[in-house]
């Protein structure tokens, strides 16, 4: 990737923070740059101005130094130039001393200059001139030194009176005097002096050497001049020596002076160059400084312009970058968010780039997506919830409305003393038989005036007060308009409203009564079952036993004369036997229900039959002081009943009533018709309809409440068992009435007891009372009767009675034998015992007989009431049923009816 693309990508991927940081950093950098640049510019200008001042000062000092040096050299030169003319002293004063002062000043200036350069910030070239300045200073010092030396040498050379030149002149003068007298010597002297003079003019050493050579010649001439005296010659030689010595000194001084001049020349060469350099550099420094200022100004302007431009550009770029990369995107994002807020859920934020805004946009989009999903879900959920709520509402409304329980919502009024119906469900209307409009908005006490007595008002108040839910148990409400069994459950809503959920338990109550009756019945049935099991077995045996006791006396009475003494005891035996049979019959009634057949009957007649019966007469005789009256409704409707049992009921009740009265009293037997409505019927646990009511009322001591619960139970008696009764009397009454679909109502108090027997009326007419035929009409015509009984006694009695009745009798002791007999023989009738042990019973026997003799007639004989087995046998075709023990008449009637079918 090329660097530019990489840079662009870097910029693109730069985070907002970095971008802001970079932008602000750039701006800050620009600001700092501008500030720094301004400061540096000012500093630079100040420095340059200082530099100019310094340079100017340096220039001034350099020029002063240069001029001073020049002046010193000129003065020094003037000294050498003018001292021969104006004299050494004056020249010394006019030129040498000012020259030295001047050079001292130059040294001072050069020192100052050096310090200035050292202290100031001059350019490097000028700073490097410190070396030159050192040289200048050294040269100046050397100049001063050499200048003084030169002045000294000049002084040595040219000092008036003492100077070497004066000395030489004097010596030459002396020599001239000494040689003046000798031409050759004088000529050589002149030559020598001439060379010396030439030397003094030209300062050419060889001239002095020539003078020395001439002196050599002079000496030689002197040696060769005898005219010259020894002394004079010696004087001349001495003068020549002095001249040469002075000349040598002059030469040496000249050499020294020349060296110094040479020195000066070298110094000048060095110093001039330095001066020139310094002047040039100082000028350069000044012009450079000025140039620098100009340059700085230009550069400042350019840079300022550049920086401003760069700053503006950077600011624009930053602003644009921030605008495009941040502001615009923030605006877009804000717009997107605003649109989203306003409900446009389909908007999406742009996610270009990798910075925080992209991340924010991405986050926004993710959130928006989530929100969309949530909203979608929410809408779905709302719809679902609404639907559910609606469903729930509907369900609850249905629950409320269709609840079988009445639901009433109350609002407390009058400080919680009364309650107004706020809402009710349909069940309330149904239960209370009122429209909604008749309830809602009305006070409970107005609608149900007996509510306080009913107890509900207190419950409502208590729930309102405590907030604790409460139940009002099953109670009976009744007012002028409505009545019934109700059970309430009351609770308080958070809103403060009171809700009463209640049920109309009237039906349930009826059912409950029925259930209780059923339970009682079942209890009794169970009890009777057990008694029946006991009694059944006993009764079977007893009936068999009693068959002898009842059967044989009857046969005997038929055989003995009517006036026989045996008549009475045999009759007594027969009656005892018959009473025993009645007891067994009661026992069986209680145990197995009324086994006898029912028929339409007039209850009044049955009462009358009882009142006319020996039993009643006997009872009356026993309770002579008790008045027994009958108040019979002449319009009493017929009932469908077992007259025997109803008669027994009347007898038992009257007997009990009589026995309940200690001393004189009254027993009233009354009958009446009554139509029971549903409510009343329900109350009594019987069906609504018309009933014929038999009421036996006494004014005895009454029955205790505790005893009332048990009086209909078998063997429950307050009498002494075995003396006054069997304990089966009221049990027979109860079972007989219930067996007839009626009920027994007992009311008892200290004033007496009343038993009301409710019998459903029957539309059927009562058949005319059969007149029992005489024995003669019951006699058979020699038909063959097969007696099947496992009891030998029973077979014997049956055989004897059949014989009496004119039938041909054949007896077998079991069903199997009966079947075997009939395989080979024909009989007209089979007298079939129901229970035989062991072997097959009467029904099974009859079934087998029918297989071989399908038209075989049969009469079932049984010690029990008509059992299921008996009924099945009768359905198979057995025409008659005779209950054991039977009399001759009963047997004759049963056979007659069976044979006539």
């Amino acid at each position, binding site marked *: 990737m090329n660097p530019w693309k990489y840079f662009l990508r870097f910029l693109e991927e730069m985070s907002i923070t970095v971008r802001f940081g970079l932008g602000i950093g750039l701006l800050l950098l620009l600001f700092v740059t501008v500030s720094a640049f301004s400061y540096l510019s000012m500093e630079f200008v100040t420095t340059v101005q200082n530099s100019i001042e310094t340079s100017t000062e340096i220039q001034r000092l350099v020029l002063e130094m240069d001029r001073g040096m020049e002046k010193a050299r000129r003065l020094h030169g003037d000294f050498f130039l003018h001292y021969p003319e104006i004299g050494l002293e004056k020249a010394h004063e006019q030129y040498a001393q000012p020259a030295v002062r001047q050079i001292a000043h130059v040294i001072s200036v050069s020192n100052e200059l050096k310090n200035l350069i050292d202290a100031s910030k001059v350019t490097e070239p000028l700073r490097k001139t410190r070396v030159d300045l050192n040289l200048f200073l050294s040269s100046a010092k050397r100049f001063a030194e050499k200048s003084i030396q030169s002045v000294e040498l000049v002084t040595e050379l040219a000092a008036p009176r003492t100077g070497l030149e004066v000395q030489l002149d004097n010596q030459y003068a002396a020599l001239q005097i000494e040689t003046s007298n000798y031409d050759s010597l004088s000529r050589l002297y002149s030559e020598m002096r001439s060379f010396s003079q030439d030397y003094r003019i030209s300062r050419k050493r060889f001239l002095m*050497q020539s003078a020395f050579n001439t002196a050599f010649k002079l000496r030689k001439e002197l040696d060769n001049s005898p005219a010259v005296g020894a002394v004079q010659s010696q004087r001349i030689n001495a003068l020549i020596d002095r001249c040469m010595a002075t000349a040598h000194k002059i030469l040496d001084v000249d050499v020294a002076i020349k060296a110094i001049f040479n020195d000066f020349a070298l110094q000048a060469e060095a110093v001039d160059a330095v001066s020139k350099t310094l002047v040039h550099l100082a000028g350069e420094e000044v012009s450079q400084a000025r140039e620098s200022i100009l340059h700085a100004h230009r550069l400042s302007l350019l840079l300022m312009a550049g920086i401003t431009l760069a700053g503006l550009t950077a600011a624009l770029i930053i602003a644009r970058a921030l605008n495009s990369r941040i502001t615009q995107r923030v605006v877009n994002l804000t717009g997107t968010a605003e649109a989203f807020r306003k409900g446009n859920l389909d908007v999406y934020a742009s996610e270009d780039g990798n910075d925080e805004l992209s991340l924010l946009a991405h986050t926004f989009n993710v959130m928006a997506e989530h929100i969309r999903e949530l909203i979608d879900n929410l809408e779905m959920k709302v719809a679902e919830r609404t639907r559910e709520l609606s469903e729930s509402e509907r369900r609850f409304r249905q629950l409320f409305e269709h609840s079988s329980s009445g639901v009433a919502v109350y609002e407390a009024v009058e400080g919680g003393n009364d309650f107004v119906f706020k809402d009710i469900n349909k069940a309330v209307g149904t239960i209370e038989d009122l429209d909604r409009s008749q309830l809602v908005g009305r006070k409970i006490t107005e609608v149900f005036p007996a509510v306080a007595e009913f107890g509900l008002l207190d419950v409502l108040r208590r729930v309102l007060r405590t907030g604790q839910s409460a139940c009002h148990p099953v109670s009976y409400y009744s007012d002028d308009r409505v009545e019934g069994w109700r059970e309430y459950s009351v609770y308080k809503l958070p809103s403060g409203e009171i809700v009463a959920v209640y049920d109309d338990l009237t039906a349930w109550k009826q059912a409950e009564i029925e259930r209780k009756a059923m339970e009682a019945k079942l209890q009794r049935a169970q009890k009777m079952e057990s008694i029946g099991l006991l009694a059944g077995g006993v009764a079977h045996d007893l009936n068999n036993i009693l068959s002898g006791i009842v059967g044989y006396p009857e046969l005997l009475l038929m055989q003995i004369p009517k006036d026989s003494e045996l008549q009475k005891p045999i009759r007594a035996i027969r009656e005892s036997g018959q009473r025993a049979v009645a007891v067994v019959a009661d026992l069986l009634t209680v145990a197995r229900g009324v086994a006898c057949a029912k028929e339409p009957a007039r209850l009044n007649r049955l009462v009358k039959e009882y009142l006319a019966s020996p039993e009643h007469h006997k009872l009356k005789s026993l309770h002579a002081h008790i008045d027994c009256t009958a108040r019979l409704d002449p319009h009493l409707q017929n009932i469908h009943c077992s007259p025997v049992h109803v008669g027994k009921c009347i007898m038992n009740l009257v007997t009990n009533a009589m026995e309940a009265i200690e001393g004189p009293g009254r027993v009233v037997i009354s009958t009446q018709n009554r139509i029971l409505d549903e409510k009343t019927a329900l109350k009594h646990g019987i069906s609504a309809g018309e009933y014929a009511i038999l009421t036996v009322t006494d004014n005895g001591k009454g029955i205790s409440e505790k005893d009332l619960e048990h009086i209909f139970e078998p063997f429950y008696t307050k009498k002494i068992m075995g003396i006054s009764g069997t304990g089966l009397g009221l049990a027979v009454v109860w079972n007989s009435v219930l067996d007839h679909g009626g009920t027994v109502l007992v009311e008892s108090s200290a004033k007496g007891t009343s038993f009301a027997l409710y019998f459903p009326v029957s539309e059927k007419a009562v058949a005319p009372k059969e007149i029992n035929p005489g024995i003669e009409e019951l006699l058979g015509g020699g038909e063959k009767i097969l007696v099947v009984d496992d009891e030998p006694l029973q077979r014997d009695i049956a055989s004897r009675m059949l014989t009496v009745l004119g039938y041909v009798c054949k007896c077998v002791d079991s069903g199997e034998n009966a079947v075997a007999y009939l395989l080979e023989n024909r009989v007209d009738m089979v007298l079939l015992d129901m229970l035989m042990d062991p072997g097959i019973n009467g029904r099974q026997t009859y079934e087998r007989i029918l297989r071989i003799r399908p038209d075989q007639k049969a009469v079932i004989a049984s010690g029990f009431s008509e059992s299921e087995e008996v009924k099945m046998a009768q359905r198979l075709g057995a025409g008659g049923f005779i209950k054991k023990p039977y009399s001759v008449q009963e047997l004759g009637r049963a056979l007659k009816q069976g044979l006539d079918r």
Partner: protein
Amino acid sequence: MPKIKPNIFYGIGVFLFAVCLSAGCEKQKPRFQCSDSIACIDVAPGEPLKIGVLQALSGNVAPLGLEQIRGIDLAVDKRQGKLLGHSILLQTEDAGCTGEGGANAALKIIADPQTVAILGTTCSGEAAGASKVMSDAGLTMISGNNSAPYLTAIAGKRAPNWQPGYFRTAPNEEASGKAAADYAFYKLGVRKAATLNDGDIYSRGLTEGFEQAFRKFGGEIVLSALISKGDTEMQPVLTAVMNSGTQLLFFPLFQPEGNQVLLQSRKTAGFENIILMSDGALIESSFIEAVKDQGKGLYFVGPSRPGGPEVDALAKDYAVKFNTSPAASYYLSAFDAADLLMQALEKAAVADSDGTLHIGRQALRNALYATRGYKGVSGTLTCDEFGDCAVPVFNILRLDEPAAGLEGLQSNVMFTYSCEK
């Protein structure tokens, strides 16, 4: 930054911690404290080591100065132009072979306080002026050519122009005059001798040495003449020589005065019988070329020419570098002077922790004074308290075949004089 996100404060913290740690851990070397009795020169890293070169680079003596320069260059080349990690910067000034020239040139050199030492001069006269300037400034100067006794010691005592910090690898020619006198008196049988000098301390020193020895041997100095530098007219002085009746003229001069004396003497009648003897300043090819056959029979007294493989190798380097043969053998002593100086600088310099080089001016002098048995190309050098480092061994040469050039001259050794003898 995120991210740490690394943030700037963490970076600054780490940086500061590192700085503190490094500051705490760094073994702070003590800054160099100059304890030199004169002063120290501080050569910052990257700055050159400045060495002043004062040589006679103008006039007829320029070839001698050039030889010195070349010898110095070869020594610098030996170290690839660097010393103690610094480049060597030579500031060369022409001293003009005069005292004032030397002095003024020295002023130029010492004007730069960074100058560590001076290599020079060519002429002893230059040195007379320069050494005082140099010495006063605390510098050290070492010459490969100065031989005037005045500069160091005369008769085992401090000479008038001796200056502290002045050294030379050229021999003290106090013995040179002696050698010439010895040869003149004993070998040549000369009993009368004239001397001619130009007032320069070299020239004067030699003539004075000669005169003292000659007189000591029993000879007579019939003339002690002087010329001035720059003189061209020699007839008067030659006349004086002639007049002196001398058998030998000892004229230790430089070019061109020496040339003029020789040439003009050849044209002077009566000089045929006067033995001419000059000095080492004229043992130089340009002189031979200048005088040619006129120089025949001229004696020279000068330092013996060093030899050996090192000399040959250096001569080869010389020839390679400068594409010519050496004009004289004095570049060897110049090479030794430069090398000795650089070796002394190496000993005296102290490198500071920041790379700055500190050179004590007195330390440098001491290092040179302590030189013992330095194996130079010009011989084994041992510096004495006066600054003389070379063992004076002089040869008397005679120019018999000018065409053979310098080599011919230097090979024609008539006599060798050694102080060790």
